[in-house]
């Protein structure tokens, strides 16, 4: 590394939106073959900075330099021409095409002649060669729709590399990946580094940053909040820089002894067979006031189980008891009427009607109680919404704000608020903090704990090891549709969970 000119320099970047300074004199440099983690809470300015780099928006002042040369990036296409590629949190692959078509989209090799027909043999040959080089075991003719999310993400990375990218920006690349898939991705990132590709790695998952980053750059409220070199990177330092204060312990200490003894099988799933795994019956109990964590790899059937309990998916067989009473949930309405709620995995498409405002979202499942003779009282709705906004600290200027405009953490609180207006007996959280910043995470965890202490049975499905170990009183681990084992708090360890999650018998 004799060459000391950084490959990328973002110098003194400022960007003002009407009424807000999104970036204030922010500087970020990246060396060749360096992995720089860009971290900060939601709204800290990370995505604005990356949008400027990608040419999606322009900055008010500041300079972008590539290998020491000032660059004016006015469009994503220009960014691409300079060797800058983005892997976004939301996948941008086309699942109606196959792997090769996705990799070479807009750069298809063509045959000679005026029709510019696609040279199909070459397309697949090139794609296979590229996949082999990356060590990906994927036939290039596989339709994307047949791949898992993680594999689709890898296709996206392959596409970025095939353009000869020198700088790859990864925005929350692991948010939908399982543990093993995450590890696979981190290996690939390290491999890219070995090939002198520079990476800007944006993630809320701090242990990933600990594992791979050469340097961590922290943004807070649109300013540089500090930098950590490889040997200084640790969780506590990063959190302190991100929030600007010492964060009290993220997890309120689990207290599994409270009500647990009194109603050990308050919520009892005696047999449950889902459409995904019709031959595997699942059974478990959750005590009153207990938080049962459900760990496992993506695809182990956890979300399907949650959806089937809640009545969204039709069960092959279901025998569920709540406080001794046998329940039959054919639709979510049945579950809701019995006090069993689901906070789904995908907030934006299942949890909320994002075009509805906060008030309308909170009242939606409980609308009858805000109405007289089927006519809704907006005043009653507003009162309920205001009290929810206040009691669980939803950051919104008013209950009339569209949910789409809220941050992920606040959207999640809105989903939760709608169930809190009832008196919940069982709440299932499916990946409750995916894509949510550290501050809001702590608040969600505190809410989960509070619910448990009030006697609610809580089930938390989580792919984040730290989360599932931190929040649960007991953990059930799933593998390919079966529960492979239960762990009590004294048995909690990353190794024990991984052992069961990969299919070892409990």
């Amino acid at each position, binding site marked *: 590394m004799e060459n000391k000119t950084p490959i990328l320099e973002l110098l003194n970047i400022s960007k003002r939106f009407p*009424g*807000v300074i999104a970036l204030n004199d922010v500087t970020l440099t990246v060396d060749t073959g360096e992995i720089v983690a860009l971290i900060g809470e939601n709204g800290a300015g990370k995505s604005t900075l990356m949008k400027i780099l990608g040419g999606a928006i322009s900055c008010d002042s500041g300079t972008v330099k590539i290998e020491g040369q000032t660059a004016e990036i006015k469009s994503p296409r220009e960014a691409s021409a300079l060797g800058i590629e983005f892997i976004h949190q939301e996948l941008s692959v086309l699942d109606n095409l196959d792997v090769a078509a996705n990799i070479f989209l807009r750069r298809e090799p063509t045959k000679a002649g005026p029709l510019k027909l696609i040279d199909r043999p070459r397309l697949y040959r090139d794609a296979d060669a590229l996949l082999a080089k990356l060590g990906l075991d994927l036939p290039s003719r596989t339709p994307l729709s047949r791949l898992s999310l993680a594999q689709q993400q890898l296709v996206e990375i392959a596409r970025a590399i095939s353009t000869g990218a020198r700088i790859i920006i990864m925005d929350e690349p692991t948010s939908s990946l399982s543990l093993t898939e995450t590890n696979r991705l981190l290996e690939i990132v390290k491999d890219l580094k070995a090939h002198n590709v520079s990476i800007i790695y944006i993630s809320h998952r701090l242990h990933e940053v600990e594992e791979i980053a050469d340097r961590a750059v922290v943004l807070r409220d649109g300013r540089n909040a500090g930098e950590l070199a490889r040997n200084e990177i640790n969780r506590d330092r990063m959190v302190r820089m991100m929030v600007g204060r010492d964060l009290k312990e993220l997890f309120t200490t689990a207290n599994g002894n409270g009500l647990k003894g009194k109603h050990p099988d308050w919520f009892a799933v005696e047999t449950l067979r889902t459409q995904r795994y019709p031959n595997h019956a699942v059974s478990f109990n959750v005590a009153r006031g207990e938080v049962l964590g459900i760990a496992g790899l993506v695809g182990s059937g956890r979300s399907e189980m949650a959806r089937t309990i809640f009545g969204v998916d039709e069960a092959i067989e279901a025998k569920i008891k709540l406080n001794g009473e046998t329940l039959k949930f054919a639709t979510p309405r049945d579950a809701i009427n019995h006090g069993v709620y689901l906070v789904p995995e995908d907030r934006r498409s299942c949890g909320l*009607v994002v075009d509805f405002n906060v008030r309308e979202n909170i009242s939606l499942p409980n609308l009858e109680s805000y109405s007289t003779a089927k006519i809704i009282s907006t005043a009653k709705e507003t009162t309920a919404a205001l009290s929810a906004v206040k009691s669980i600290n939803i950051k919104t200027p008013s209950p009339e704000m569209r949910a789409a405009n809220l941050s992920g953490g606040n959207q999640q609180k809105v989903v939760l608020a709608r169930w809190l207006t009832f008196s919940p007996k069982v709440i299932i959280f499916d990946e409750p903090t995916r894509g949510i910043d550290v501050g809001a995470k702590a608040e969600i965890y505190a809410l989960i704990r509070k619910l448990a202490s009030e006697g609610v049975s809580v089930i938390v499905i989580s792919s984040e090891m730290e989360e599932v170990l931190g929040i649960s009183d007991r953990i059930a681990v799933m593998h390919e549709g079966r529960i492979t084992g239960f762990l009590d708090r004294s048995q909690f360890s990353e190794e024990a969970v991984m052992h069961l999650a990969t299919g070892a018998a409990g």
Partner: protein
Amino acid sequence: MKKELGIFILLVVLCIIVSIKNPNFLLAINLQNLARQIGAFGIFSIGLGLVIITGGIELSVGSMMALLGVFMSMMLTEWGVGVVPAILLCILVSMVLSLTHGLLITRLNMQPFIVTLCGLLFYRGLARFITNDETKGFGTVAGLDFLRYVANGNLFGIPMPFVLLILIALVTWVLLHRSVYGRYLFATGRNAEAARYAGINTKRIITAAYVVAGALTAISGIIIAFYTNSVSPANHGNAYELYGIAAAVLGGCSLRGGEGSIVGILIGTALLQVLRNLVNLLGIPSSLDFAVMGAVILIGVMADQILTERRNRRQVTQMRSATKS
């Protein structure tokens, strides 16, 4: 109300221009005639609007009207059915057929466009077959005074179809904008999956919208049949579904679903009828009729789109400044 304001201004401006160019526009007889047509077209347009809010579409309206028209005529003039049973049967048939559309769409997951396109073809064919392709009228059968009054009469100088429209609009306004059903309809149209997770029976909500649309189509159909006083099975009601869709879209309904209002649909209907009237009054060749309508709808929807985007941007800005402070 903001959303309807733009299209309302367009309507007012058009009216002013027409009345300046041709003062006959303001003659009582012209205005009455206009109101009568707005009434007849507005009623089924409201139904179509509800279907569009679910994210669906109903293309069979015109054919359904032809079928119901000849059915009505045959019941009254050939089969000796009484007036009241005939009206009820007519509405019932329409609701049952619409229920079938709704069930095919929600239970078999068929696309609304396909289901109702087949309805469009099927009902037209059926109407022509049962009449041997002969035009049907209501002849000199006694006891039809009430129906003739509803279609052609006035109440205190206001055409009856318009009066009916206002009554129906009031009821559906409460239904759509104040009732639990209306909120569910919007939620389902915006995001059916999220609505299901909130415990809404989305299949029932969507089916109900088609059934209501069927009932309103039947009411409009009876009025229009008595207004034209003859029903030619091959042409009656041709392309009326497009008037309804245009009115709903002009009035702010999004074909993606989840958006729209009764007031908007009313203004949209009025605008379309004023346009038809304008073509006559300003001596524009009637062959240009559809071209004028097409151009105005395009401009109206385009302007609305631009304003909506501007409004959304403003709300995002407001959000940003609110969370930062």
